[in-house]
């Protein structure tokens, strides 16, 4: 796990504005899968079949749970803060696709990362970043242990990578059900998310 204070890995940070300019200038290859996380350009893990299947299943389940008035985005950019433009595997935002034709959404009501090799990064690093941005509902679909980790209630914590973490974390196995904070009338079997 990289830490910010470690001199060994202190690299030049980019702002979100710079990142978007780099994309416009065509500096990156179109095939590249990168995200801006806390000013650092991170390369996403290659997607295996289970990973992608989990994304599709989760997106479908969330579309059914949230219904009209919400847009379920898969691996789309989120304008999280001045130095972060992550592309979470699944994110639920209010409204319709056209609402975000000019600027990326910034505050998903639910953010989901599907994790295999990236488990530690998704839990600590991205968890801290999402908590700092105040994202209320963050799920890590853990394919290694076949469980859903549900993180809520961001709290300040100076020992976390970005100074925040989630105060509550719950682990749900395949037999449990989960209720999104922003769709309180729904209930999703965890087994419907797992590949």
């Amino acid at each position, binding site marked *: 796990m*990289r830490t910010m204070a470690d*001199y*060994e*890995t*202190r*690299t*030049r940070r*980019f702002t979100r504005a*710079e990142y978007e*300019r*780099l994309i416009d*200038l065509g*500096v990156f290859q179109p095939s*590249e899968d*990168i995200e801006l996380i806390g000013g*650092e*350009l*991170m*390369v996403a893990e290659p997607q295996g079949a289970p990973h992608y299947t989990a994304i599709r299943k989760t997106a479908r389940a969330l579309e059914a749970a949230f219904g009209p008035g919400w847009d379920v985005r898969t691996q789309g950019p989120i304008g999280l803060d001045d130095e972060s433009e992550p592309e979470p595997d699944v994110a639920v935002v209010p409204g319709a696709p056209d609402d975000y034709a000019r600027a990326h959404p910034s505050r998903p009501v639910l953010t989901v990362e599907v994790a295999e090799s990236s488990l530690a990064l998704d839990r600590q690093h991205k968890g801290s970043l999402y908590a700092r941005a105040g994202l209320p509902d963050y799920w890590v679909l853990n394919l290694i242990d076949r469980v859903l980790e549900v993180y809520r209630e961001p709290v300040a914590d100076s020992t976390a990578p970005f100074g925040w973490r989630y105060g509550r974390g719950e682990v749900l196995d395949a037999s449990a059900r989960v209720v999104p904070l922003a769709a309180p009338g729904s209930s999703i079997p965890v087994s419907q998310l797992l590949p």
Partner: protein
Amino acid sequence: MRRWTRHEYERLMDHGFLDEDDPVELLDGLLLVKEPQHRRHRTAVLLVARAVERAFGEGWFVQTQSPIILDDRSEPEPDVCVVRGSPRDYVDAHPMRPALIVEIAQTGLRLARGRKAAAYARARIADYWIVNLIDRVLEVHREPARPGPARRHWGYAAIETLGADATITPLAAPSAGIRVADLLP
């Protein structure tokens, strides 16, 4: 983390993302932030430059904190390096194979011993010195060694630590002798 090629690094400069004053160097594809320049660091750079200039003499020149090219993903700016020829030989391209590289390290000691040593060894830099300002010693790294059963990364097989009262002879200037004390601020 995303790695940059040297070509992309140059595009970043062309488009104004980085300029000459940015304390950044490209090492193994990473845009590393350089150690802040404390007064002692600066003094050591000047002392080392003067000492190696004298030791190498004619036919060589010394450059400080200027770019060299190691490979497609590395364009570092070592504190001091000694290059064959004259500055005019490198109007069109940065030097590639200095005969000696010296880094001055205080907060950046781990970086100098780790990632930088690996990159220099991989580029077969035969003589790499670290002026360690914390312990006031000179660390002399020689014999680049490839990864194998004994080591995970490229590195140097022969590392010697010299105190202030020792004398060091650069590999490429075998008749010269430099007092380590003359390199320390």
